[in-house]
């Protein structure tokens, strides 16, 4: 059975807001991160994810609740006594120190001998692909290189846990994908427990073992990327992760629902005659031009690997993705089409 490395138990943090008075940044958050696991806190800005991370690091003290790392209660322990590696969004490289000295900082604090420090720093710089950069000053490096120095600095003293606060948001799109793969590879290689904060759902899905979605200071759902995408627990999660059609459906029978005249074979477990909310992802809807049905193409966007359609069906607008568009001519706006729902992936809220 995997052991728990970081545990948050009903942690809350309030801030004084100039207009609203006292507001909860984080409210009753409980989380358990297993040894070697990468958990991502995902949510829009202001949802409390960074505050949660900063409380794990010790930069903020919770107003209520407890935090433990490796079984030790650290709720009121200062950050320098926690053994954490932290990576800031702006990297926070010491501008007055060379790359080598930036990475060595944590080791010098521990009072390691000079030879050991040199060896460890050179090793980790090699690991992040910056072997010959030790003498450079931070401002001479590119954004990606600064990022890797920050990563090296955070892992070199073998902290118990690694914490990332939106580390990739200052990089351009391509470098972002490259760096997140590097971070994930490094994290798996050294098997370190990691908490990662981001507002980018794609990044979260790509990098995480598990994702906790936060909204207004509360964890609304935590699970694998697959769980969050196909079995979102709330409307917020459904909308935040991927693109979604949220459709009101009438339960026709134990095994059938109806949306705008379309019947879908779906067992909901809800009483006949009641209304349910369906989470229908764009790729679960199929369009066919012949024979024409009662839906109309409103808009078409060709994106290469797929084509997105906006389709009007009765009173609702449906987002539809087609990946088989290379097989047949594209459907034109204004063209009437038939809509078919694939019941396998549809989730009932």
């Amino acid at each position, binding site marked *: 059975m995997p052991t728990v490395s970081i545990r948050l138990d009903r942690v809350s943090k309030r801030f004084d807001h100039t207009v609203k008075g006292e507001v909860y940044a984080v409210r009753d958050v409980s989380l358990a991160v297993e040894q070697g696991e990468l958990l991502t806190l995902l949510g829009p800005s202001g949802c409390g994810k*960074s505050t949660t991370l*900063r409380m794990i*690091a*010790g*930069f*903020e*003290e919770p107003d209520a609740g407890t935090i433990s790392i490796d079984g030790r209660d650290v709720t009121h322990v*200062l*950050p*320098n*006594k*926690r*053994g*954490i*590696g*932290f990576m*800031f*969004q*702006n*990297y*926070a*490289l*010491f*501008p*007055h120190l060379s790359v080598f000295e930036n990475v060595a*900082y*944590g080791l010098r*604090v*521990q009072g390691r001998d000079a030879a050991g420090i040199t060896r460890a720093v050179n090793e980790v710089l090699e690991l992040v692909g910056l072997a010959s950069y030790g003498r450079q000053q*931070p*401002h001479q490096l590119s*954004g990606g290189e*600064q990022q890797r120095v920050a990563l090296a*600095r955070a892992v070199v*003293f073998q902290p118990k846990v690694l914490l990332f606060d939106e580390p990739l948001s*200052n990089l351009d799109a391509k470098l972002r994908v490259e760096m997140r793969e590097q971070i994930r590879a490094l994290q798996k290689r050294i098997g370190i427990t990691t908490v990662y904060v981001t507002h980018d759902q794609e990044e979260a899905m790509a990098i995480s073992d598990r994702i906790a979605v936060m909204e207004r200071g509360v964890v609304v759902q935590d699970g694998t990327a697959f769980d969050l995408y196909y079995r979102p627990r709330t409307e917020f999660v459904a909308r935040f992760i991927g693109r979604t059609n949220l459709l009101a459906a009438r339960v026709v029978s134990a095994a059938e629902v109806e949306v705008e005249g379309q019947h879908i074979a779906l067992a909901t477990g809800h009483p006949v005659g009641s209304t349910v909310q369906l989470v229908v992802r764009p790729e679960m809807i199929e369009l066919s031009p012949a024979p024409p049905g009662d839906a109309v193409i409103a808009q078409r966007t060709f994106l290469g690997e797929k084509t997105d359609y906006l389709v009007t069906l009765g009173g609702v607008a449906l987002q539809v993705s087609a990946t088989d568009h290379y097989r047949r001519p594209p459907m034109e706006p204004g063209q009437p089409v038939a809509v078919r729902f694939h019941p396998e992936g549809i989730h009932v809220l």
Partner: protein
Amino acid sequence: MTVAAAHAGSWRRIAADPTLLVTLTAIWLLLGLFVLYPLVELLARAFVDDGRFSLAPLLESLADPSHRAAFLNSLLLGTSVGLLGTALGFLFALTAVRGGLGRHWLTLLDAFALLPLVSPPFTTSISIIFSFGPKGFITHDLLGLTNVSPYGYWSTTLAETLTYFPIAYLTLRPILAAIDPNLEEMAFSLGGSRWRIFRTVTLPLAVPGFANAFLLLFAASLADFATPLILAGNSFPVLPTQAFLQITGMFDFKGGAVLSLILLVPAAAVFLLQRYWVGRRTYVTVTGKVGQRSRTRAMAPWAGALLVAGCFLVAALIAYFYALLVWASLVVAFGANNSFTWAHYHVIFTEGLPAIRDTLIIAAIGMPLGGFYGVLVGYLIARRRFPGRRAMELVAMINYALPGTIVGIAYLIAFNDPPLALTGGALIIVACYVFRYSPTGIRATVALLQQIDRSLDEASSSLGAGSGETFRRVTLPLIAPAFFAGLGVVFIRSMTAISATIFLVSISWTLITVRILENMTELSLGPAAAFSVFVIVVVFVVIGGLSAVLVRLRAPAAGAAARSLLGG
């Protein structure tokens, strides 16, 4: 295009723009007359003997042991004030940035820190005499000491430190505030103790600020004339006072000129150091984006409390000195007869009225002239391309950068005889203030214009407006905050300055600051205190009014302009 061709091109453009041509000519004439000409006259007086260049007067002056002592004393005083003032400024800056004080407490701290900057130069000195003199409140009344002397190195250092430490505060505070809190948190997470973080992260990042603050304070102390004149006494002569005595006591213009030029050596060294060494050593945040600002735990609560306590102790000392000043202005004879009286105020508004009237007239004339000159030159430097632009920038700053004693003596020598016998009149005093204190307005204008896109000017000229029209319709409204800041500085300095203008006053035109000095030497301390209180009140009213104007303008850089108002 070759350099020569480029020059020819810009000459042609000037010739095609008559407004610009006339303006440039007028400014160069004024700069030549009121900046370069006096300086040349001063150098000629010091170094030309019988039509030949000679270093003999300089060597003679240096050989005089009392002059050498004055030189060394000036350096010692500047270094002491630089070190102590920087330390005090750092205490205030660190408290303001990291002390966790509420907004109202911060405002109070600011008020105490800025009070000495806008007061007449003698206020602290007078209070020190009231406090530590033979009849001093502390030395005599509280400690019962007799035969104490408040004059010399220690009291001068104390007075100058309290007067000038706000410069260090204003220099260090933005530098500390700009240190990314993430850096300290990062070091914290890497296991560093709070003391280690302070030592290895915070202090190294503040080093350029320390150097800058020290040099500014050193220069301010070096140039300070009023404090040593009152407090240094005979045992501790310094260069500005020696030069003054040489001229007013012995009517030795040549000796005064030479002494003032000796003062120029350390002043120039400081200026060059600041410009070419400190200027290149500021650390910018690497990513340019400062991390989120939250109450950092990187400062231990007891350390924060200690800082706050230290600041309020200093603030209390300043408050005590000002209270003493007000008290002295309201009692019959300080230390001897403590019964209440308005007599001193009566004196300054009857006998002292000419000085008040003259000062206000001169300030009122100098203020608009200085404000307009500041924005005009600032605009030309920041926005127009013309041959000699860098030279104009440099020359316009000279009188500002030079110690007031040098400027005063140079004006006295240059304008004492025909064809330009201006001494004795108000014009010479106004000119001295305008060319000495408008550079603050020039700098504020340049800083403001650097934030305003040049395309606005270009849009105006594409719509057919000439350079004068563009300046009036587009630029002037945008640089209004700098204009008002320039007005403010010229006015405040006209009310409080003495170092240069003491050489220029006459029977027909005198100044409040000069009257305060006379009162001090005649030991009529009551009127001196009343005059000081009057000046402080006027200055505060004007600053309040200008702040209100700046707030109403709501310009993006109004805050910066308001700061330069105080920092000037």
